[in-house]
C-alpha cells in the first residue's frame, strides 16, 4: 500500500510540475495554455533528435532543449497573444488551440508517428527499505522527480519572495494595469511567464518520456491531469498546484488499482466538475477570479 502511494506521489509530482507551469502562465497572462503539452512534446522530440540523430550528449541536449522551449514560449506570447490581448480571453484561448494543432502537425511531419524511445536520466537499482512496516521501494526515478519538484518549488519560492523581478511577477499577476504604473515592464513579465511555462513543459516531457515514449500525443494526458491538479489547487497558488498534483497522483493510483485503468480520465473529469462547482476556490484556495 505504501509503495502504491509512493508511486502515486511520483506521478503526482509530474502533474505538479505541469500545474506549476500552467498556473504561472495563467496568473500572469490570464490565458490557459492548451498548447502546453504539445510545447513540451515538441521540445522532447527535439532533444531526442539531438541525442539520437545528431549524437549530442544527453545533458547538453536537455539544456539546449530547455532554452529552446523558453524562446518558443516567449515568441508565442509576444507575437501570438500580445497582439490580441485586448480582444478577449476566448480569442487568446483559440490561438493556443491553433498552436497546439501546428505543433502536433510539425512533430508528425518531421518525425512521424512512431514511438521513439527516450533514455532514462538516472539508472540503477532502486533503494529498498525493509522494516516492521513492510518493504518500501524507492526507485531512482522517483527520487529524481521529487528532487526536481523540490528544487523548482524552492526556486520559485525564493524567486517570488526575495527577488525584484519575482515581486514584479506577483504584481502583474494581481493587477496588470497597476503593476504598469509602478514602472514594471509588463511585457517582460508576460514574456517571462510563458518562457517559464514552456520550459516546465519541456522538463515534464523529459521526465515522462522514458515511460510513455516520445510520440505526438505523449503529454496530452499529462495536460489533463495538470489542469485537474491546478483546479484542485484553485489555480491561484503554486503551493496549491503542487499539492493538487501530488494528491491527484495518489488518487489516480488508488483508483487505477482498485477500480480500473480505463476510468482515469473520467475520474479526473468528475473531480474537475465537483471541485469547480463546490469548491470554486480549490481545496486550498484563496481568492477566486473569473477571467473570461
Amino acid at each position, binding site marked *: 500500500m505504501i509503495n502504491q502511494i509512493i508511486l502515486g506521489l511520483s506521478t503526482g509530482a509530474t502533474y505538479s510540475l505541469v500545474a506549476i507551469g500552467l498556473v504561472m502562465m495563467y496568473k500572469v497572462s490570464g490565458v490557459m495554455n492548451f498548447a502546453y503539452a504539445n510545447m513540451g512534446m515538441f521540445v522532447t522530440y527535439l532533444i531526442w533528435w539531438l541525442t539520437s540523430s545528431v549524437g549530442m550528449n544527453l545533458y547538453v541536449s536537455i539544456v539546449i532543449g530547455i532554452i529552446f522551449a523558453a524562446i518558443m514560449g516567449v515568441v508565442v506570447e509576444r507575437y501570438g497573444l500580445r497582439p490580441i490581448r485586448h480582444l478577449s*480571453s*476566448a480569442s487568446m484561448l483559440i*490561438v493556443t488551440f491553433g498552436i497546439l494543432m501546428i505543433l502536433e502537425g510539425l512533430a508528425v511531419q518531421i518525425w512521424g508517428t512512431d514511438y521513439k524511445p527516450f533514455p532514462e536520466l538516472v539508472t540503477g537499482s532502486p533503494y529498498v527499505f525493509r522494516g516492521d512496516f513492510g518493504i518500501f521501494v524507492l526507485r531512482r526515478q522517483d527520487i529524481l522527480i521529487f528532487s526536481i519538484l523540490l528544487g523548482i518549488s524552492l526556486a520559485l519560492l525564493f524567486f517570488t519572495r526575495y527577488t525584484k523581478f519575482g515581486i514584479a511577477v506577483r504584481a502583474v499577476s494581481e493587477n496588470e494595469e497597476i503593476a504598469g504604473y509602478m514602472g514594471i515592464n509588463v511585457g517582460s513579465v508576460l514574456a517571462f511567464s510563458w518562457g517559464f511555462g514552456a520550459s516546465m513543459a519541456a522538463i515534464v516531457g523529459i521526465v515522462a518520456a522514458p515511460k510513455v515514449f516520445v510520440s505526438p500525443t505523449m503529454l496530452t494526458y499529462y495536460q489533463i491531469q495538470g489542469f485537474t491538479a491546478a483546479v484542485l489547487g484553485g489555480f491561484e497558488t503554486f503551493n496549491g498546484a503542487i499539492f493538487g498534483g501530488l494528491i491527484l497522483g495518489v488518487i489516480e493510483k488508488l483508483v487505477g488499482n482498485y477500480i480500473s485503468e480505463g476510468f482515469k480520465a473520467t475520474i479526473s473529469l468528475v473531480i474537475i466538475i465537483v471541485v469547480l462547482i463546490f469548491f470554486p476556490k480549490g481545496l486550498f484556495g484563496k481568492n477566486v477570479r473569473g477571467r473570461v
Partner: protein
Amino acid sequence: MVWVILAIIPFFLMNNAFIITILTLVGIYTIASMGLNIIMGYSGQISIGHAAFMSIGAYTSTLLVMNYNVPIVFSILAGGVVAFLFGLLIGFPALRLSGFYLAIATMGFVVAIEQLMSSLESVTGGHAGIRSIPFEHVWNSDVEKYLLVLAFAFICYVFMNRMMHAKTGRAWMAIRENEIAASVVGINTAKYKVLAFAIGSMMAGIAGALYAHVIGYIAPSDFGLSKSLDLLAISVIGGMASVDGPLYGSLIYVAMPFLFSRTHVSMSIVFGIILIFVVMFMPLGISYYLYKFRINYLNRIVAFFKRGRKPYGDFVETSFGKMHYIKRGSGEIPILLIHGNFASARFFEPFLKKLPAGYTAYCPDLPNFGYSSEMPGDVEIDKYAQGVEEYVKAMGLKDFILIGHSLGGAVAMAYAIRNPDKVRRLILIDSAPVDGMDLAEESHKLLNMYRYNPQIIKSALMFNAPTYTNEKFFDVITSDALRIAPKAFVGNAVALSSYDYTEKVKELKIPVDIVYGDKDVLISSEEMKRTAEAFPNGKLVMIKDVGHSSIIESPDEIVKLLQHRE
C-alpha cells in the same frame, strides 16, 4: 432554391463516387458545426468536447442498427436523442463553469468518453472500434448516403434558422452579450444555456451517427480531442455566430487536404495556421466577410443594372455641358422647381400632375444629377446656383416663381440672392436651413455606401416621404439617383454644411414661403423658424402629418399656397 440544386448535384457526378463522398463529409461536419455554433457562437459557452457527442451518436446508432436492426433513419434520430440527453447532462454543470474552466471540463469530457468507449470492449469493440457498419441502399449507396446527409442538413438548417429568429435565438444572443443584463431583463439564462448545450449536442450526435453509416467504420480515437478541436476550428473559421459559417468551415476542412496533396505538409499545421490567422485578423469568420463582400461588390452589379439609361425629357446646352429637364403646362406664370439630394427632375411628377392652368413648370436635373452633365471641380451650393443660372439663361426665363426642395432649397436661396431681379417669389419646401446643415464626419463612409446600394437609396427616399407610398415611383427615382456623379455623394453633404446665407438673405425683399412638414425628421422646426426669420418677407408654413417631402406628400397644399399669394 439552393437546396434543390444541391440535391441534384450527385446525379451529375455519378462517375465520381469520390467527390460525392467528399461532399457528404462536408455535410456531416456542417451539421456538427452548426451544433457547436449554437453552443459557442450564439449562447457564448465554450466547448472543446463536441466530438464526444458525435461519438455518442455514432455508437448509439451503430449498435441499434447492428444489434437490433433498427431502420437507419430512426437509429440516427436515436443517436441524436441520446446525444441530446448527454448534452443536458453536461449543460447543467456547465452553468457553474465559465470560460477557461468550461474549456477544461469539456476537454476532460471528450477524453473521458474516448477512454470509456475504449474500455467497454464488449459493447463498443474497444480500441479497435466497429467495422462494416451496414448501409441499406436501394440503388447507389454513395448517392443515397449523400441525400440522407443532405436531408438532415436541410432539416437542421431550417431548424437553426427558425430558432435564431425566434425568441430562443434572441435569448441566446442576449446571454452571450451580457449574461447579467440578460437575467435582469427576465431571461431564464439557465434554461437557455442548458438548452443550447442539449440542442447543439443533439446535432453533433446526428452528425456522428451519419458519419458512422457513411464511413462504415468508427473507433473511439475518431472522436477524440483532435476532432473536437477540428470542429472548433471549423466553427471559428466559418464564423461562430452564423448559420452558414459551418458550411464554409467544413468545405475548407474537407477540401484542404486535396489542395496540399502534392506537398507533404501535415493538415494540422495548415489548419492551425488558418485558425490563428482568422482569430487575429478575421474574428467574425468567413461568413461575415462574405456577407460584406456581397454587400459591397455584388450590389454593384445590381446597381449597374438598375441605373437609369433613358432620358425622359429635353436637353439644353450650357457652358459646362448638357442640362436635362422636363417642362409641363403652358400657362403664363413660369415656375422653376429645383429637386433635392438623391432626386431628379421627375421627383416633382406627383405635384406636376396637379399643376393648375396658368402655370408652366420647368424642372431641371441639377448638374451632377440625373441626365445632366457633371459639375466641374468641388461640389458647392453656389456652383449649383450657377448651374441654375445657366439653365435660366438658356431657357430665357424671367420673373418666375422659384421652388426648391431640401438641397434644392439651399440652391434656390443661393440663386435668389445672386439674381433677385429674376425671381418674383421664393417657395422653400422642407429646405436646408439658411445657415447650412451639418453632417457628422462619420457619415461620410456611410454616404459612399449609397453609391452601389439601390436598396438603401430607395429606403432613404421612402423614409423621407412617409405618407407617399407609391413604390414604383421610388424605383424610378432610385434609378435616376444611381446616375449621381460619384464625387457628389459625399460632396453634397460637405456642400450642405459649408454655407451660411443668413446675412445675405437680409437683402432679399421678395415674398418667401418656408414650408415644412411637421413629421420631417431631417430638419427641425427650430431651423425652419430661424430660416423664416432670416428673410425680411418670410413666412413660415407648417403642414401637418407629412414628412420631409411635402411637395409630393401633400401636393394640394402646395398648389393652394401657390395660388393663395398670387
